[in-house]
């Protein structure tokens, strides 16, 4: 999967439907995602935004009784095809979860985990990757003297940045973030938001957030989901100043949700 294609779209989703058993969780979604942009997804709980996010790296496939139809093209290839190599896909599409979930290993081993498994053995090369990933998430100065210390000894915000570093270390093209700051204090949240802003230079970022100010602050495009449908997708500035759909307006002005 080379990503040197001419289109600006890294993901192109067409008529995506998803069922958990009988529950129709995503209904006919059309969603193009542009390269090197931050796309935010907002909407009330249970609206399908996290489900949509987890379809992009097929983490949904872990759940029993899930059925997915339609087309999700990543770099021109439909990943819903049964022969899709999940390992290969997830190398290109990294993910950061709601709560920092470092492995119970040292800080260094956490970041080196992905590259090691993908075949990088040389110590100098690993050192370089780990250093760079930790620098990218602005954690290097805080942990450089204790790389062998357990990752679980870090603060919540540091753990989350470590998890971002861990995802970056496998050199993905896309970074999916599932409410990455919902468990963090305001200062840590600010750090992560600044980080998203910088990472945009190199990566495509798709972020689910409950915090509308956050969506407004960090994203280029914003999508509003409701009851499994994509109601509106447009430039962030447009959606927050003059939404086309009245339901979007109701939600962002706080009339429901």
């Amino acid at each position: 999967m080379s990503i040197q294609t001419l289109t600006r779209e890294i993901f192109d989703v067409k008529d995506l439907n998803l069922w958990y058993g009988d529950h129709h969780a995503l209904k006919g979604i059309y969603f193009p995602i542009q390269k090197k942009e931050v796309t935010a997804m907002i909407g009330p709980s249970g609206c399908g935004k996290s489900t949509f996010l987890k379809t992009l790296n097929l983490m949904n496939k872990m759940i029993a009784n899930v059925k997915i139809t339609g087309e999700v093209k990543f770099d021109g290839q439909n990943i819903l095809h049964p022969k899709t190599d999940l390992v290969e896909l997830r190398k290109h599409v990294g993910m950061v979860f709601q709560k920092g979930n470092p492995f119970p290993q040292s800080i260094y081993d956490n970041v080196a985990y992905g590259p090691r498994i993908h075949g990088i053995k040389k110590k100098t090369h690993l050192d370089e990757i780990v250093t760079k990933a930790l620098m990218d998430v602005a954690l290097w100065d805080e942990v450089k003297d204790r790389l062998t210390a357990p990752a679980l000894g870090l603060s919540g915000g540091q753990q989350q940045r470590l998890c971002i570093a861990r995802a970056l270390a496998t050199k993905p093209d896309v970074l999916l973030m599932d409410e990455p700051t919902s468990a963090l204090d305001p200062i840590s949240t600010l750090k992560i938001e600044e980080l998203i802003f910088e990472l945009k230079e190199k990566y495509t970022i798709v972020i689910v957030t409950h915090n509308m100010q956050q969506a407004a602050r960090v994203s280029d495009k914003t999508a509003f989901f409701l009851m499994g449908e994509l109601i509106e997708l447009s430039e962030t500035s447009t959606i927050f100043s003059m939404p086309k759909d009245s339901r979007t307006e109701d939600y962002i002005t706080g009339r429901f949700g």
Partner: protein
Amino acid sequence: MKSKTADRIATAVFVVIAIMITAILAGLFFYIFIKGFKYISFDFLTSPSSNVRAGGGIRDQLFNSFYVLFITMLITVPIGAGGGIYMAEYAKPGKVTDFIRTCIEVLSSLPSIVIGMFGLLVFVNTTGWGYTILGGALALTVFNLPTMVRTTEDALRAVPRDLKEASLALGVTHWHTIKTVMLPAAFPSILTGAILAAGRVFGEAAALLFTAGLSTPRLDYSNWNPFSEQSPLNIFRPAETLAVHIWSVNTQGLIPDVEAVSSGSAAVLVISILIFNLAARLLGSFIHKRVTATK
């Protein structure tokens, strides 16, 4: 006021139950130690047992106990952990999985004497090996396997889902995720399961009577060739373990010092189990620290 009284009564009842359990356990230990401690000597531990004369030791029985334990765990742990991994991570919920689980549960509730009889039929007669350490170890495996499968399965299920997702999301294969993230996280619980299983092996007599036998050939501890008849390491020789020895001395012993040998053996058995448990836990926490970098 009434519910407060009930609360006080409940507290008192539970405290009494707790004291009773502790007292019984402590009493048992004291009884075994006081009765048996005085018979334990260097000589007792290092001389072979005698069938007729007084003053026999338990050297071979002690060695046999540890050796049978070792061989049993060598078979039980890989198969049991493998089964547990399959049940927790690969088996699809459904009729087949339920059936396997029922089988495992039935297996774990079989009386050990029945497993001994089964072992006699299969590992002694059908194979034509006669009474052997391997036969004993296989019989013990039969009734330890369920515990091992169950604890491994439960331990893996208890690993936070986050960790598994984090690893899979990095493009790591399922097996590699199990190996590098889930098993290390589940290690302490799996170890506890293995220690429990080992304790049962150590104390088991009924299942070994008909499989490992009631006798031990004359052993030469300087002979380390596992294929030699006299070697203690030979797995195709009969081996009376300590627990079996206590039983046989008490029921059919001809020696005049039955009391001394059986009390001494009982104390040694209990102390061995204690030492084994402590050592296994220390080793386990050491390994866990190394793997997970926790202090």
